[in-house]
C-alpha cells in the first residue's frame, strides 16, 4: 500500500509538472513571432475584429495604397509619403557614430532576410565613415529582454543613436520613451509603439493595406457564399491583427464565408487544418497573414486531390516558386522587407542634419501574376526563405551573402 500511494503521488507530481511545462510553452507563444506552438481551430471573431479594427487607420491606409511617394522609385527604401518632417539640425555632427540596435528577434525568414540586408547596408555606411559600429542586442521575441536591452544601451551603451524594432506595441512604449529622454536620435521601425517621441518611425503602409489588397483580390475572383480559409500566425501582434481585421471586414461585406485559424506557422498544423476543412466541404480560397507555410497549404490541396484554391501568400520565394509550379491564381502581398535598410540611412541623414519624415511611410506594393516571372528571375539562386522585395541588389556582397544566408 505504501508503495502504491507513493507512486500515485509521483504520478500526480509528474502530471503537475507536465502541466506547468505546458503552461510555459503556451505562455511563450504569446510573445513569439512566427514558429510558435499556437494551436488550430476557428479563432474567436467578433470581439477581436472590433478590438483591432480602426476605421480611421483603415481609411488612411486605403488612400496610401495609391498615394504618390516622394523620391526615386528605383530606391523604394528611401521613398516616403509627404507629411510632417522632423528637423534634425540639432543632431548634425561630424565623424563616425555608434548605433545601438535593439532587435525584437530574427526568428522568422522575413526578419532574417532583413537582418542580412541591414548588415550589408551597415558595411557601406562604415566605409563611408558615417557609422563607427553597430551594437546589436537580439531580444529573441521577448519584450522583457528587449526592455532590458534598451535600458542597458541607455546606461552603458555609449550610443550616439538608437535603432529599435519593437517586439510588442504596448510593452515597449515606456522603454522607447526612456531612450527618447536621453536626447539622442531614436529610430523606430517595423512594429510601432504608442508614443511619437522617436525622431522617425519607419514602416511600410501597414496591415490594413495588406488586408485590403488581399481580400479584394480574393473577393473579385470568388462568388458570394464561397469558402475562404484564413491561416494566421498568432494573435496579438498589431501588424498581423490589422491584416486580418481589414480582410475579415471585406469578406463579410462581400458575403464570403471566411474561417480563421492560428497556425503558429507550423506546416503540420496548416496541413491538418486544410485537410479537415477539405473533409468538411470545398474550399475556394486561402488567405494568409504571412507567407511562412504557404507551401504546406497548397500541398494539402494536392494531397487531397482537390482543385487548387485562389490564394494570397507573401513575397517569400517558397511561395512564389510554388505559385509558378502549380500555376494557381494568386497574389503575393508584400510587407516591404527593404525597410531594414532605411533605419541606418535615416541615421545618416539625421547626423547630416537633413530633415526626415516624422512618420516614414514606405511603399508596399503586392506582386501580381504578371510580375511573378520577373521577380523570380531577379531572385534566381536565392533560398526558399528569401524575400523577393528585399531591396539589397546594389549592396556589397550581393548575391552571395543572401544566397549563403550569412547571418552575422
Amino acid at each position, binding site marked *: 500500500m505504501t508503495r502504491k500511494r507513493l*507512486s500515485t503521488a509521483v504520478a500526480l507530481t509528474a502530471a503537475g509538472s*507536465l502541466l506547468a511545462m505546458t503552461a510555459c510553452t503556451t505562455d511563450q507563444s504569446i510573445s513569439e513571432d512566427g514558429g510558435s506552438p499556437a494551436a488550430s481551430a476557428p479563432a474567436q471573431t467578433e470581439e477581436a475584429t472590433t478590438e483591432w479594427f480602426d476605421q480611421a487607420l483603415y481609411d488612411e491606409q486605403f488612400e496610401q495604397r495609391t498615394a504618390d511617394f516622394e523620391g526615386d522609385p528605383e530606391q523604394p527604401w528611401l521613398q516616403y509619403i509627404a507629411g510632417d518632417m522632423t528637423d534634425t539640425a540639432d543632431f548634425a555632427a561630424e565623424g563616425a557614430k555608434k548605433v545601438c540596435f535593439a532587435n525584437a528577434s*530574427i526568428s522568422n525568414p522575413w526578419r532574417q532576410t532583413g537582418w542580412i540586408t541591414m548588415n550589408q547596408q551597415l558595411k557601406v555606411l562604415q566605409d563611408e565613415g558615417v557609422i563607427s559600429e553597430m551594437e546589436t542586442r537580439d531580444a529573441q521575441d521577448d519584450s522583457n529582454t528587449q526592455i532590458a536591452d534598451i535600458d542597458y544601451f541607455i546606461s552603458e551603451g555609449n550610443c550616439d543613436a538608437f535603432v529599435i524594432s519593437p517586439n510588442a506595441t504596448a510593452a515597449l512604449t515606456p522603454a522607447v520613451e526612456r531612450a527618447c529622454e536621453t536626447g539622442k536620435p531614436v529610430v523606430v521601425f517595423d512594429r510601432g509603439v504608442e508614443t511619437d517621441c522617436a525622431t522617425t518611425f519607419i514602416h511600410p503602409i501597414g496591415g490594413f493595406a495588406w488586408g485590403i489588397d488581399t481580400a479584394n483580390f480574393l473577393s473579385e475572383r470568388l462568388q458570394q457564399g464561397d469558402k475562404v480559409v484564413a491561416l494566421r500566425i498568432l494573435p496579438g501582434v498589431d501588424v498581423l491583427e490589422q491584416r486580418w481585421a481589414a480582410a475579415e471586414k471585406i469578406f463579410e461585406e462581400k458575403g464570403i464565408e471566411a474561417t480563421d485559424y492560428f497556425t503558429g506557422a507550423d506546416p503540420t498544423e496548416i496541413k*491538418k487544418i486544410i485537410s479537415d476543412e477539405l473533409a468538411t466541404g470545398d474550399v475556394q480560397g486561402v488567405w494568409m497573414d504571412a507567407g511562412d507555410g504557404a507551401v504546406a497549404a497548397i500541398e494539402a490541396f494536392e494531397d487531397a486531390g482537390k482543385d487548387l484554391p485562389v490564394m494570397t501568400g507573401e513575397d517569400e520565394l517558397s511561395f512564389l516558386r510554388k505559385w509558378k509550379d502549380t500555376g494557381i491564381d494568386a497574389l503575393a502581398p508584400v510587407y516591404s522587407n527593404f525597410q531594414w535598410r532605411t533605419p541606418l540611412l535615416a541615421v545618416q541623414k539625421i547626423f547630416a542634419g537633413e530633415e526626415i519624415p516624422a512618420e516614414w511611410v514606405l511603399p508596399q506594393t503586392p506582386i501580381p501574376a504578371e510580375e511573378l516571372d520577373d521577380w523570380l528571375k531577379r531572385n534566381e539562386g536565392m533560398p526558399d526563405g528569401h524575400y523577393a522585395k528585399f531591396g539589397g541588389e546594389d549592396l556589397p556582397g550581393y548575391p552571395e551573402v543572401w544566397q549563403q544566408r550569412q547571418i552575422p
Partner: protein
Amino acid sequence: MSTILDPAAGREVLQHNRAGRGERFLRGLRTPGGGVFILLLALLVAIIVINPSFGEPESLIRFIGRTAPIAIAAIGQYFVIVSGEFDLSMGSVVAMQVIVAGNLIGDDDSKVIPVLALMFVLGAVIGLINGLITTLLKVPSFIVTLGMMLALLGLVLFWTGGAAQGNPADSFRQIGRGGIEDVPVLGIIPYPVIILTAVAVLAFWLMRRPYGRTLMAVGDNDVAAALTGARVWWVRTRAFMLSSLAATVAGILLVGYAGVHPSVGRGYEFTAITAVVLGGVVLGGGRGWVLSAAAGAFALEALFTLLNFMGVASTWRPTVQGVIIIVAVAAAAQSWQRKRRGGSAAAQSEQQRITAAPEPTEGTDKGGN
C-alpha cells in the same frame, strides 16, 4: 482442497480463472488500457455524425496517415514511461531531425540514404546519452531529458536562426507524403500508415519478448527486478533509445508530411505523454499496454478534430490536454489500485486458492489478503 498443489488441479484453477475469451475481452475493455479503444470509437462516431464525409474510407485512411507520427512517438514514449521514466526530449529530437534532413539532404537524391542512416545513428546516440545519464549517474530522467530538450532546441535555433530554410528532395519527402495509389476502396494507402503498422507490430512483439517482460518488471519494481538478475540500467537505457528512435521516425514522416520548419515537433513530448497516459499507461511505470498508447494518440487527435469540427476555439486546446492528463492519471491510478486490492472476484479467488494454507481448518475460508 489439499490437492491444491497438485499440478493438474492447479491447471484446473487457472482454467477456471481464465474464464472465456469473451469475458476476458470485456474485462480488458474495463481497464483504462482497454477503455481508450471505446473512447476512440466513440470519438470517431461523434466526428462522423457531425461530418459524415469524414467516414469515407479515403478520409479515414488519411486521418490515420497524418496521426501516424504522433502515434509512433507515443509508442516510443510508452517504452520509457512503462519503465518508470520520462522522455521530455522527444519534441526537440523531432525538430532536430527535421532540420538535419532539410539542411543535409537539400535537393540531392543521392544523399537520402546516407542522411537517413545518420539520422538513425543520431537518434540512437541521443537515447543512449539520456539513458546512461539517467541510469548510471542517477539523475532523474525528468531533468536529464528536460536538459536534452533545451540543449537540442538551442542547437536547432542556432543552426536555423529559428526560421525554415527549404525542403529536402521530394524523393525523401515521399516517405511521409506519398503512398500506394489506386488501391480499391481506400484509394490510397499512405506510407505513414504502413510504417505505423510495422512499428506497432514490432513494439507489440517486443513487449512479448523477454525484453518487454523485463522492462515491465523494472518499471513496476526496479529493486525486485535487479534482484532477479535483470540489468536494470541497460534495460532502461534501451527504452530511451527506442524513444529517440521513434522520435526520429516521427521526424522523417513529418518532414514529408509538412516540410521543414523549426516549429515542427514542438510540443510533441507533451502530446506523446498525454497520449500514453490517455492509453491507460501508469506514470511511474509497470502498467499498461503498448497498443493502448498508440490508441491514446489516435483518441487525442480525434478529440482535437472533433473540437475543430464543433468550432471550439483553438485557445482551449492546451486546457483540454491538461484536463485529460489529470483525469487520465487519476482514473488510471484509481482503477489499477482497485485491481491490486482485489477488486476482481476471479482474481481474488485464484489468489486465495494458491495461497491457501497447507493445513486448512474446516469451515473457515480466511485466505487471501
